């Protein structure tokens, strides 16, 4: 502390004190009005960087959550369609089973063959169904439906579409491709049903006819097994998307909590700091006023 206090050094000190008090008041006011302790990078550079990284992670989690929901929805649609397909195959096998029974006669066999042929339209509708503007069983080939109107299979070459639903996680297939369930080593299900109807109508050789129908039954069993396998994969995918959705939901909450902890101002603390700094400004200005208004010797001697 200098020995000699002059009027100018007094004034300079007062100005510095007033500026310091006002600065603290301004900072406290900003925290209260914005609700944040970090309003610009310079407030807390490391904290600002942390918040940015957390917000990015939040955005990623939200993106994955949307993807997981989309895949889950697509798989549910696929599962419903596969269930209908399984029922259709089951019905066809039942009809074929009746056709090889001892009570089947020409008339009943003709009726069975007609029923089997009638399943073709339902099958084509199921195989070519769309969700939004996507073919459910189209895979990566979305430019045309898996089957043409005349029953020609045009889904060859399509692959499963994979979607990543978690950071660092393996992508999950968002459906089943037509090739996996509507074709086998010999051909496709439409042709198989046509062959089954032909086998039911039969020839004049009962033994050969029975062998033909049994072969058709076996072939349809093969399609049913492929479908079961596909349903298992869909089930696994559904489990994965649901588990991912749970984890992502928890992550989103945790990230938001962490970001708030870094970025948000404690309102109670901020309000107290505001009140304190406001009082400090008043006290500083009052003390400056008192000192400045005191009578100097010049005032006393008149």
């Amino acid at each position, binding site marked *: 502390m200098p020995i*000699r*206090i002059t009027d100018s050094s007094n004034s300079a000190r007062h100005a510095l004190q007033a500026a310091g008090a006002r600065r603290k008041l301004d900072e406290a006011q900003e925290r209260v009005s914005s609700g944040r302790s970090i309003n610009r990078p310079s407030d*807390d550079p490391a904290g600002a960087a942390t918040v940015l990284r957390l*917000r990015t992670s939040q955005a990623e989690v939200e993106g994955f959550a949307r993807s997981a929901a989309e895949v889950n929805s697509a798989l549910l649609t696929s599962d419903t369609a596969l269930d209908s397909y399984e029922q259709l195959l089951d019905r066809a096998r039942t009809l074929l089973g009746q056709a090889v029974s001892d009570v089947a006669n020409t008339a009943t066999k003709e009726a069975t063959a007609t029923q089997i042929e009638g399943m073709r339209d339902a099958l084509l509708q199921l195989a070519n169904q769309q969700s939004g503007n996507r073919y459910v069983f189209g895979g990566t080939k979305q430019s045309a439906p898996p089957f043409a109107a005349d029953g020609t299979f045009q889904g060859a070459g399509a692959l499963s579409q994979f979607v990543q639903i978690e950071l660092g996680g393996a992508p999950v297939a968002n459906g089943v491709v037509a090739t996996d369930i509507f074709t086998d080593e010999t051909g496709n299900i439409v042709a198989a049903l046509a062959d089954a109807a032909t086998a039911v109508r039969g020839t004049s050789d009962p033994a050969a006819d029975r062998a033909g129908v049994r072969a058709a039954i076996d072939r349809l069993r093969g399609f049913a097994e492929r479908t079961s396998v596909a349903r298992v994969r869909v089930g696994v995918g559904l489990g994965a998307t649901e588990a991912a959705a749970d984890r992502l939901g928890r992550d989103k909450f945790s990230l938001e909590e962490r970001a708030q902890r870094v970025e948000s101002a404690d309102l109670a603390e901020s309000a107290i700091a505001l009140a304190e700094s406001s009082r400090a400004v008043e006290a500083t200005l009052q003390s400056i006023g008192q000192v400045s208004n005191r009578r100097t010797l010049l005032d006393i001697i008149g």
Partner: protein
Amino acid sequence: MGVNFSSFEIGRRALRASQLGLTVAGQNIANVSTAGYARQSVQLSAAPATGTGLVGSGVTVDGVRAFRDRFAETRLQSETATSGRLTARRDALAPVDAAFADSDQPGGLQHALNGFFNSFRDLEAHPDSVPLRASAVAAGQRLAATFGATRQRLADVRRETNAAIADSAAQTGALARQVAELNGRIASAEAQGAPASELRDQRGEAVKQLAELTGARATEAADGRLTVTLADGRPLVVGDKASELECVPTPPEGLNTLMLEGLPAAIGDGRLRGLAEALTETGGLIISLDGLAASIADRVNTLHTSGTGLDGSPGLNFFAPPAGGAPTTAANLSVSAALVADPRLVVASPVVGATSAGTVAGQIANLLSDGASQAGGRTGSFSSLLASVVTDAGAGVRAADDALQTQQLILAQAQAQRDSVSGVSLDEEAINLLQYQKAYEAAAKFLRIADEMTQTILSLGQ
């Protein structure tokens, strides 16, 4: 011995000394708020006896002394220079802080970055969607625009800082001329024995302002003339001659280089140094931002060209390479015109040669958190690289602000130290006024008594 005409001389000298004391006190009071003023006081000494007299012959005015402490003045100049540097740096960098504030909010760069890569995440789930491709193109355009706007703000800061350098250089020239002129007037006045305290005060204040601008130091020669030198010892003012600080625009950006007598000027402190430091810092931030933009364009384009569009055509560059082979920067980042015209060209095809590795869209989306990206000598994910740029900006401003707050206290202390020697205290001057007033009244009374005594003696002879 006894009353004689020497008493009148004693009284006359006493009156004159008291009058001078009052005048000096008045001068001090009048200049209580004058920046750089050094308080003065009358230097008195007892006049010796003349001839065979037994009593002295009154008071002699030896002069009027100004109270200055060279060490305190020099220290004040030095701290003023440091304060000028830190203030200029803080003020120049403050807009940089604003450029990166709310980066994670809509309109901010981090928000645009997240939105761009997330648009590919959405496209991954619907790889056949044309609307989502259009969204990806729009997100790319938003990202490019935000990069450009942020860079422009930094460029504006550099331009304004550069203009401030020119302004400060002009001020320096005016102050240097003022110091040179005062050098001449002080030397001339003191050579003739006339007081030059006020001129010295003015010169001291000009030198302090020069120090605030350039960090210059002053040394006084025997004839009272000051030499003001820059950090490398080259003179800005020598005697009556002042040199000009010239601003020369330097390629490639046309930023001002300060020249003194045709050679680069060494500015070690002061406002000009602070502005130069701010220029360097903002330049570094622009380089980092450009590097990040280039890295994003490069990695996205590499993946995008590895796939096929919705129509099966080979993937194009998502971000257009700048014309003429120029490097990609934050200023020229843009989405390819072909993709803007036809979003179906945006790639979301399966990764070639893989069975379960997802799509190119997914790979692009994963770049946001892929830690292998490189920009500005750093390696990390794009989000962490951008966070580093934001941290650099904030840390620079914070450091400048913290240093300035500390320096303001040091400067206040240096000013107080100078004022404790040279500053005017109204209370002291009031005491001086009383003292000299009483002395004047007493001297006047003495003269009246001496006059009465003389009249008495003269009347005896009649």
